[in-house]
């Protein structure tokens, strides 16, 4: 098993399992902040997926996307928190 294969067929599926677990929390909640941290986690996992996929398919270019996610997804979470805190 070559490294890319490990990345694609071992690490990536594990990441996906993590993703599913995250979705479990997303679904069961119980409160909104739980769901927000789920999608925060989702973004983090996304970065992981991209990194692993970059290794697995030899595409360094897509690592640029991680930068964008790292910068931007934060804004989403902040907005959610802002909303959560103020809504009433």
């Amino acid at each position, binding site marked *: 098993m070559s490294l890319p294969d490990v990345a694609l067929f071992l690490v990536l599926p594990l990441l996906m399992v993590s993703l599913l677990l995250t979705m479990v929390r997303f679904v069961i909640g119980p409160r909104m902040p739980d769901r927000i941290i789920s999608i925060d986690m989702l973004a983090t996992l996304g970065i992981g997926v991209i990194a692993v996929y970059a290794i697995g398919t030899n595409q360094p*270019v*897509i690592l*640029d*996307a991680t*930068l*964008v996610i790292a*910068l*931007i997804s*934060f*804004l989403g979470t*902040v*907005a959610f928190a*802002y909303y959560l*805190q103020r809504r009433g």
Partner: protein
Amino acid sequence: MSSLILSAATRLLLPLMLLFSLFILIRGHNEPGGGFIGGLVASASMALYAIAYDVQRARESLHINTITLIALGLLLALGSGLLPLFSGLPFLTVLWLADPVPVLGEISTAFTFDVGVYLVVVGVTLTIIFTMAEEEEN
């Protein structure tokens, strides 16, 4: 209720994000990126700023009316397309500067067009977000 931690972090993030947005804009012709994504990242930074502080401050730090920014962006994009008409070429034909400019590399009307896109995206996103946020604050 503002957050000290968020405000302080934003002060650091804002320039980084703006810089990054320019980076994405400039290399867009050759690598993933371009005016859209660049513009979106730039507006994200300002949006963050507006959330961390307030819209008024964000508007002031921009120094330019967002709607004017939109118009300027459109004008730049349009102008880039109009330029070739003067050389008898069809609208939106890309013209290249003979010599490459340091850093930016080879300059073309495609690039200025993309800069226009960047400005429009920033202007639009910020107009929308600022207006909405001001509405909320009232």
